[in-house]
């Protein structure tokens, strides 16, 4: 059976997060000192070789991303931590920040040193004012004790827009604008915050960095799945026995997560479906549970690892009703910048609601499928591109549920 392995949560419950002495006492900030002794390009090389890939959803090699900013000359560069955590069912970044804020600050400071940035921002969702307090306490202590050197970190709050988790929308929001995604390229690594080279990484990504520097790229890359090494923090929700979080090596299977760590379906019921990666993730039937959870294995079955949210639905779940709710989410969260998403999310919700109310025909379902395919290709950002995934995957794995509701 799968065993927990704690890298990003290594200090969970062992230190007082509000005391920097505790973090320093367990070796904290030594990786930053080590990094400064190695030199900038050696740090980037080490992170690249570890094959640490972004934990925010896109799975991009963190060291490579840092390299883009390092190689772009500029008078100012920025490090931005994406702590927007808006994906329903996800609270892993909160757990990391509440329990070990300094590991995040250290990870960001190492990145700052590596790319040549003296300023960092943590963009923390507005729904977490109590996490903002923890971060500010940690930042004050780190500044007072001088461990960050000339690297400054400031917390900025999001304000309830899911799309601001998308890195260019996030940047717009820090700049004080509506959070509408930018056209890419240019990518933030080259021209991001206020047009300057900017590394945007997720909380969990940064939290891995001090350990990688301490134990080395080789150690890290040998853990879990070869192409997506390390661990992943999972948050389990829905009809599961253990509604909690776990940090597991990336070579465990979905079954290990749901039935091993999760303890299986609640009340002795049978499983109907699992949705992984948050509300934009695909729905997975029982027959695919032996898939490994790493980024590439999940993509191969048309699902995502995403944020690591694991939403378990038992045999009594009305999937059409759940999809109705999810399509409403996307209608609400679409920023409106591009037509395929602005119109598409609205129409998709309209059609699924019609199915849910027993008023739809087979033609409506066919139309929603076509609409979903268009959105996947035509939408400007990941929100609109991923919005149809829950519907399209339930249609491929659970179509009888929809047919049973036709009028």
């Amino acid at each position, binding site marked *: 059976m799968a065993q927990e392995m704690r890298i990003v949560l290594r200090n969970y419950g062992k230190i007082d997060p509000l005391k920097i002495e505790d973090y320093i006492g367990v070796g904290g900030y030594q990786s930053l000192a080590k990094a400064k002794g190695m030199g900038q390009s050696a740090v980037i090389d080490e992170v690249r070789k570890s094959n640490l890939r972004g934990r925010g959803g896109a799975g991009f090699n963190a060291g490579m991303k840092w390299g883009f900013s390092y190689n772009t000359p500029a008078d100012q560069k920025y490090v931005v931590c994406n702590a927007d955590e808006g994906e329903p069912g996800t609270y892993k970044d909160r757990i990391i920040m509440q329990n070990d804020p300094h590991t995040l600050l250290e990870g960001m400071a190492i990145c700052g040193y590596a790319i040549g940035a003296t300023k960092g921002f943590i963009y923390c969702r507005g729904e977490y004012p109590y996490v903002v307090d923890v971060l500010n306490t940690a930042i004050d202590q780190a500044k007072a004790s001088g461990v960050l050197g000339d690297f400054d970190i400031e917390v*900025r709050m999001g304000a309830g827009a899911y799309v601001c988790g998308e890195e260019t929308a996030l940047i717009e929001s820090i700049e004080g604008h509506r959070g509408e995604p930018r056209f890419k390229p240019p990518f933030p690594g080259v021209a991001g915050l206020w047009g300057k080279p900017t590394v945007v990484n997720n909380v969990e990504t940064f939290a891995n960095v001090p350990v990688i520097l301490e134990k080395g790229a080789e150690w890290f890359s040998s853990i879990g799945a070869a192409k997506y090494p390390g661990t992943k923090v999972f948050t389990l929700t829905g009809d599961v026995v253990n509604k909690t979080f776990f940090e597991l090596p990336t070579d465990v299977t979905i079954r290990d997560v749901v039935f091993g760590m999760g303890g299986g379906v609640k009340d002795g019921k049978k499983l109907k479906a699992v949705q992984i990666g948050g509300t934009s993730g695909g729905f997975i039937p029982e027959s695919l549970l032996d898939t490994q959870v790493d980024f590439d294995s999940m993509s191969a079955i048309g699902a995502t690892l995403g944020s690591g949210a694991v939403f378990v639905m038992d045999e009594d779940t009305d999937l059409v009703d759940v999809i109705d709710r999810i399509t409403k989410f996307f209608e609400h969260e679409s920023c409106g910048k591009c037509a395929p998403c602005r119109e598409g999310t609205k129409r998709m919700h309209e059609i699924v609601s019609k199915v849910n109310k027993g008023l739809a025909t087979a033609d409506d379902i066919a139309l929603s499928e076509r609409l979903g395919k268009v959105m996947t290709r035509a939408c400007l950002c990941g929100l609109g591109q991923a919005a149809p995934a829950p519907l399209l995957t339930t249609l491929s794995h659970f179509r009888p549920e929809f047919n049973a509701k036709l009028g």
Partner: protein
Amino acid sequence: MADYNEIISAFKNKPGGIIEAFHAIQKEYSYIPEEAVVAAADAFDMSKARAYGVATFYSYLKVGKRGKNVIRICESAPCHVAGADKVVAALEKELGIKMGETTGDGKFTLEFTECVGQCQATPVITINSVPYGDVTAEKVGEILAAYK
């Protein structure tokens, strides 16, 4: 209560600080007064339309009056399947208002929200951003008592 003009001037020199200013105003008033949006436009040197556009883009920010205590109910899928609708019904009954409304005495406003990141304890509500988990219809009265 701190005047919104004072709050705005504290953030005036922060690049992109208008959203932080709106947060600080909302913390004080529980909403953003319309006139504060105009004052912020002025302070951050942008058109009123733009400042208004920013304030209304974000669902956590509310322009225009609402109750002193803001109760938000998560309706994201995990809370939805855990019975958020029963919590909604209990809150509406207890306060005698519908979702989106404010009680006559101005004490409570009921709103929907998407996930607030406390999904280990679905269904979840927040009151003035403080989360309450595993909420049931029975627990609603007890939770509200502290705010009455």
